[in-house]
């Protein structure tokens, strides 16, 4: 890699990693947060800000440190180094009950020996809200989550989705500065999950609360978040809006973790990316690079007519029919490519077929080869 290309490409990366500034004033500020267990570093010098009214998501595989980060913000885990500010106050050394956060736990953690109404009232009692106001607030919260008719039930008598809404009402009853959600949908079946995350977004927008959300599910993160923090091995890989994360991944990890993609290794010379096996894609703005990775989303690989520009032949290795589209794994002279497209009935490719494809150059992204 020549010197100019190196500085240019690393500039691009650092700019994207920083991401856009949070909207409005920061409600949660985390600086250089580090958690070490003996020699294992769970969270490594993590810094981020959550803006007023923003929904920020910590996304990453299990063990990436996202839940540890959330636990440190809530106060359940003491950081080894670093500082946490909530609503302007330094809470780094404060116990959980002195922090202005409301948390929804992965298991919901409802109090099994209390009714739904008593669960929601618990926080209000702790801060000494008088009985009349307490009752009114509990009523408001249960109306908000549409569970008023179940106020006298016990948690074990509710469905998973209802329990989640009680947990949310309980967390919001105290009007915390920030709502913390720890994998709130992981205990629900797939269909319910999709419905409830729309519901959750609607509720969060309705009360207009700053939210920090932890998940390993990229779909959840893309659909729900204003901004996403992609984490890996205790570090931030990239911060950005869902569009930026998907369309302009800063690293190979982000590209592979968010959505599906094919990675092609090759060289960039005179505005042309070229693999060893001869697949070429125009990348007009890019500088010359000796080794680069081209991130190809499945929808960027398209069927081509026999005379399409830069078209090439590929053999179908396998195909999965999803109704609206078909996902096809292709082998183009040794390069593995993933393609998603709609094929009309009889045209669905079968393993062993040879098809002619081309790469749509719009939106392809280059990242530095490791």
């Amino acid at each position, binding site marked *: 890699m020549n010197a100019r290309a190196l500085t240019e490409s690393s500039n691009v990366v650092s700019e994207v990693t920083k991401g856009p500034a949070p909207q409005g004033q920061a409600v949660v500020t985390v600086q250089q947060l580090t958690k070490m267990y003996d020699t294992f570093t769970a969270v490594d010098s993590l810094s981020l800000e959550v803006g007023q009214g923003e929904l920020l998501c910590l996304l990453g595989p299990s063990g990436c440190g996202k839940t540890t980060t959330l636990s440190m913000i*809530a106060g359940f885990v003491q950081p080894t180094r670093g500082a946490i500010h909530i609503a302007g106050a330094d809470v780094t050394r404060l*116990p959980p009950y002195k922090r202005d956060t409301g948390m929804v*736990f992965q298991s919901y*953690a409802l109090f099994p020996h209390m009714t739904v109404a008593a669960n929601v009232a618990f*926080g209000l009692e702790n801060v000494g809200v008088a009985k009349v106001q307490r009752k009114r607030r509990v009523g408001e919260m249960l109306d908000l989550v549409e569970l008023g008719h179940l106020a006298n039930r016990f948690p074990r008598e509710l469905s998973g989705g209802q329990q989640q809404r009680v947990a949310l009402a309980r967390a919001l009853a105290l009007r915390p500065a920030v709502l913390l959600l720890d994998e709130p949908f992981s205990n629900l079946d797939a269909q319910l999950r999709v419905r409830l995350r729309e519901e959750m977004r609607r509720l969060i927008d309705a009360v207009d609360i700053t939210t920090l959300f932890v998940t390993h599910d990229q779909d959840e993160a893309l659909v729900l978040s204003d901004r996403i923090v992609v984490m890996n091995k205790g570090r931030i890989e990239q911060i950005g809006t869902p569009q930026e994360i998907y369309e302009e991944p800063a690293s190979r990890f982000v590209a592979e973790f968010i959505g599906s993609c094919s990675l092609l290794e090759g060289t960039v010379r005179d505005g042309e990316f070229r693999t060893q096996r001869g697949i070429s894609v125009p990348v007009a703005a890019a500088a010359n690079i000796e080794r680069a990775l081209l991130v190809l989303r499945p929808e960027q690989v398209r069927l081509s007519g026999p005379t399409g520009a830069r078209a090439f032949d590929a053999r179908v290795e396998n195909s999965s029919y999803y109704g609206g589209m078909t996902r096809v794994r292709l082998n183009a002279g040794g390069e593995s490519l993933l393609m998603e497209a709609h094929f009309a009935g009889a045209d669905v490719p079968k393993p062993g077929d040879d098809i002619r494809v081309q790469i749509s150059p719009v939106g392809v992204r280059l990242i530095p080869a490791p």
Partner: protein
Amino acid sequence: MRPIVYVGLCIPAVIIVAASFTAGEALRFPPEGFSLRWYRAALSSAPFMGSLWTSVRLACLATIGALSLGLCAAMALDRYRFRGREVIRNLTLSPLVVPMVVLGIALLQFLASMKLNQTFVGLLAGHVLITVPYVVRTLTASLVLFDRSIEQAAANLRAPPWRVLRLVTLPILFPAIISATVFAFVTSFGNVTLSIFLGTSQATTLPVQIFTYVEQNYDPVLAAVSAVVIMVTLAMILVIEKVVGVEKVA
């Protein structure tokens, strides 16, 4: 198979209760006739009633002591990782392993050196020692299943630690605490060996009283006393059934 086991377990109790209603002079089964004379004899016997009261008092105090110590020990063993944790865990369970006679002799020596032999306090200390293991075991088992995030949720809702303990942790542990109470009470109430070594002439427990009585006499008053003990135990289980439900405790 199960009915046979249940019948096998019940037969001795049934025989003793049936024999207690005999009108005859001898303790035998089947009983001769029917009368309550041996119950009158038992209830008017100062040694038996005095020792029954001693036993109840001792079992109540020992249970309270064992619960306080055992709850703290079980919590500490479950929640903290400290040096010597396994040693302490095994120590709390060791009174179950050491033969009761050995424990009795050792405690007698030890209490004598502290001038506490032949006192109610010494007897109580011994009973706390043998009931603590049941409390620690029962509570440890339910603490292992305890979802810690429930306590975190309480803290997140602005509850200081003591409020979390009082309003969340202890209420959720309530069935296990009741279960531990029953084990501790029954263990103390039925103990003979330790009470023989540590008992005093003023404070004889009911099992020891029965034991010494049987060396001299063998009349149906024993059956009547035993029947009373069985009824007290049954009454206790019925009360628990009413309060929490036995299936939650077991």
